[in-house]
């Protein structure tokens, strides 16, 4: 690969969906970004997640972003010249028992109190009519009828291609080693030489804490690897994405008939070796849950399993916003297994921060400052006034 110019207006570290989306929005604003990706674009979580375009039961801090992002998803083809495999059949979190129902009704009350209407209750009768194969004892659930799903690798590649067509550059197989700010320029040392730009963006996913540490703002990032299974093609039986409440599950049938089973059970991960080992005991738990919820699935043939590596934060919401320790440096990482839906909007937010110095959406809850050692009298990070949905589902 020819190195091209050694400088850019913005350097983005990490060619996942968020890095690619930032490059696209910047390119649309006339700002030329250089994306540096250690592997290939979409290698890890961005390319192999469950593809949920979900606003349902998000952390309340994420709701404004998720709703704005969903608007971009509705016209994704006009944004990236590809439909990204977008299918809109809603997402529903089902109540298997009384405790589930109580938790979901609590959640609904919280959302209604905040004035949100995108989540509604679906009664058991209607749910059974919508999903005839679901176990009849289901007690209804919480539904976001406008939610959807898309094809993750296709989406990430579409953002990359559109960004590149508008002038963004992508370097793959190049590893960022060190970043430092010298005289108003970021100097980025990589395995393929030194690159400079006035602005630097950290979209490094499961490896983002290393960059943050270089900027003197360490974060308690946990590399995770949510496991997925896929079946062979089956006759069509399911439209919406089905999520579990008291136990983790994300369950969806794609247009091609295959069924994707996820939900956040985690593989063992070695982020340096970029290697994961699937935990079949945990997957067996997931299989038991699927068979209980959809008895006909006991005969479904599982053909593949995988797990993409990404970052989880202790409070399970991402870090989005400017560095508090460095000038002209920005973060977007730590999406904690539900970043896919936010991809389109996070790129726009980063573009706004870089080009206008502010975001049109409320991103204060995502400040990296929440992990800074507390100053005297300030609330400790764990006591931020946020509602963390304990049943937060995985993308």
């Amino acid at each position, binding site marked *: 690969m020819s190195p091209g110019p050694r400088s850019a207006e913005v350097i983005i570290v990490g060619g996942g969906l968020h890095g690619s989306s930032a490059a696209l929005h910047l390119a649309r604003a006339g700002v030329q970004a250089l994306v540096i990706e250690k592997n*290939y*674009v*979409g290698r890890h979580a961005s*390319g*192999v997640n469950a593809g949920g375009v979900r606003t349902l039961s998000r952390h309340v801090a994420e709701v404004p972003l998720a709703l704005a992002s969903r608007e971009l998803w509705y016209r994704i083809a006009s944004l990236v010249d590809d439909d990204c495999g977008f299918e809109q059949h809603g997402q529903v979190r089902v109540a298997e028992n009384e405790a589930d129902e109580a938790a979901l009704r609590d959640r609904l009350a919280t959302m209604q109190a905040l004035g949100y209407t995108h989540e509604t209750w679906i009664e058991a009768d209607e749910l059974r009519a919508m999903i005839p194969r679901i176990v009849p004892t289901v007690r209804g659930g919480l539904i976001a009828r406008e939610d959807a799903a898309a094809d*993750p*690798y*296709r989406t990430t*590649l579409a953002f*990359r*291609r559109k960004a590149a067509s508008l002038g963004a550059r992508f370097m*793959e197989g190049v590893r960022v080693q060190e970043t430092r700010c010298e005289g108003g320029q970021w100097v980025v040392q990589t395995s393929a030489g030194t690159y400079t730009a006035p602005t630097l963006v950290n979209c490094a996913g499961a490896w983002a804490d290393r960059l943050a540490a270089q900027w003197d703002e360490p974060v308690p990032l946990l590399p995770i690897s949510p496991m997925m299974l*896929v*079946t*062979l093609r089956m006759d069509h039986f399911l439209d919406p994405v089905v999520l579990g409440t*008291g*136990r*983790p599950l994300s369950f969806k049938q794609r247009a*091609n008939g*295959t069924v994707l*089973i996820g939900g*956040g*059970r*985690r*593989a*063992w991960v070695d982020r340096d070796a970029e*290697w994961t*080992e*699937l*935990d*079949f*005991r*945990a*997957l*067996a*738990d997931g*299989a*038991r849950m*699927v*068979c209980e919820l959809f008895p006909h*699935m*006991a*005969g*479904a*043939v*599982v*053909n*593949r*399993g*995988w797990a993409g590596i990404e970052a989880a934060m202790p409070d399970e919401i991402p870090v989005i916003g400017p560095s508090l320790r460095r000038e002209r440096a920005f973060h977007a990482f730590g999406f904690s297994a539900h970043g896919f839906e936010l991809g389109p909007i996070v790129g726009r937010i980063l573009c706004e921060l870089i080009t206008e110095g502010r975001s049109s959406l409320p991103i204060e809850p995502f400040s990296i400052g929440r992990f800074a050692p507390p100053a005297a009298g300030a609330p400790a990070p764990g006591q931020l006034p946020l509602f963390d949905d*304990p*049943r937060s589902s995985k993308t």
Partner: protein
Amino acid sequence: MTTTQCDLLVIGAGPAGLAAATTAAGLGVDTLLLDEQPAPGGQIYRAITTTPVTDRRILGEDYWHGASLVEPFRASGARYEPGATVWAVSRMTAESPDAGFEVAYSVDGQARMLRARHLLLATGAQERPFPIPGWTLPGVITAGAAQILLKSAGLVPSDRTVLAGCGPLLYLVAWQYLNAGAKIDALLETTPPGRMAQALPHAFDFLRSPYLGKGLKLMRAVKAAVPIVKGVRNLRANGAQRLESVSYDAGGKTRTMAAEQLLLHQGVVPNVNLSRAVGAEHDWNEALDCWQPRVDDWGATTVAGIGIAGDGAGIAGALAAEHRGRLAALHAARVLGRIDTARRDRDAGPHRQALARAVRGRAFFDTLYKAPDAYRRPVGDTIVCRCEEVTAQQVRETVALGCSGPNQMKAFLRCGMGPCQGRFCGLTVSELIAEERGVPVSEVGYYRLRFPTKPLTLGELAALPQTDESRQAVVRLKK
């Protein structure tokens, strides 16, 4: 459910696995052999104890040699579980990673789990994909599959049959068919002109090898009974619902002949699905155009505690496989503390000599029978991925979209995502991407293969024994 335990788990009961298990058990190693087939023998000695083809002249003495591996194995004290399909191996997520590997497998649709301190994969070879126009039509099968029908059920085709491709197995199947009384309408050789000249530098060893005498006898018999066409190009299978005819170019002319059966073969390659899924490093073998796991002289892979013996560690044939199995077993016994290094090295001597004899001459016919580029790197509408019906042209065009490797291709076109788990398309996809990008295949890489390495039902998976650890794991996730 009690979990089975063993010190050495051997997977696969072909020549490498049988010899390895026999040797290891003989050294006092607590050994278990799991095999997918209902009876021992692997593919090369398939159904050696059960074949209905009892006239020894039909399948030939090389086949019946397999019986000499079974009796010692049965007497060795090694445990044996036939009909067992391994679909997952774990270490870091095992109940106690220090105690070794956890292996999940199924017997009769029932999932089971066992613990083993050392693994030896003896999972052998598979036939190289042979993607020509029409290769997915009913009536077109591989020569290896045809041979299995003969060995295990005594079946030969009764209608018009054409064999096509290259490699020793093609002539062997023709010979066995003739012995069994089947008629072969033509044998179409795809070996391009000039190959003999390339192979000649390796001829000296070949002339001293046992292959020569056997091979010549066999080829003489086939040539006397079957019309043979050399230098066959543009081979294609025609038909609407099933195979009706075979077309090809040879000697400057295009010919079409009616046929109900077309048996294709262009060599064998290591079956890498399990070796890749356990995380072993693999290298591209330029001479044989295939991936093979990186192993040392003892068959040890780059993953501690996992060895590979036989053709799964690189193609060297059935006789070599048994010697490689014995060497790997000696090493396993040393690693497991049953013998010391000096004993291992001393005992290895005769096996190393036998191995050297067994592989002598292979370079000659490896070169002679190298599968031609045009049959490895198809163009146009020729199907590459049978499961998802992805064509060569689609793969080639998708490279231009930025899919620079097989995994991106998999995500984009779903090639390799079907029931065969990439076995029929993996090599082709890697080679096509390499050709389109103008880079070596080694740079393009292969599908990441993950467990389950064999499809299983969700019900089977759900029946996997639950442990305290797994219950805690779920609680941990829910927080």
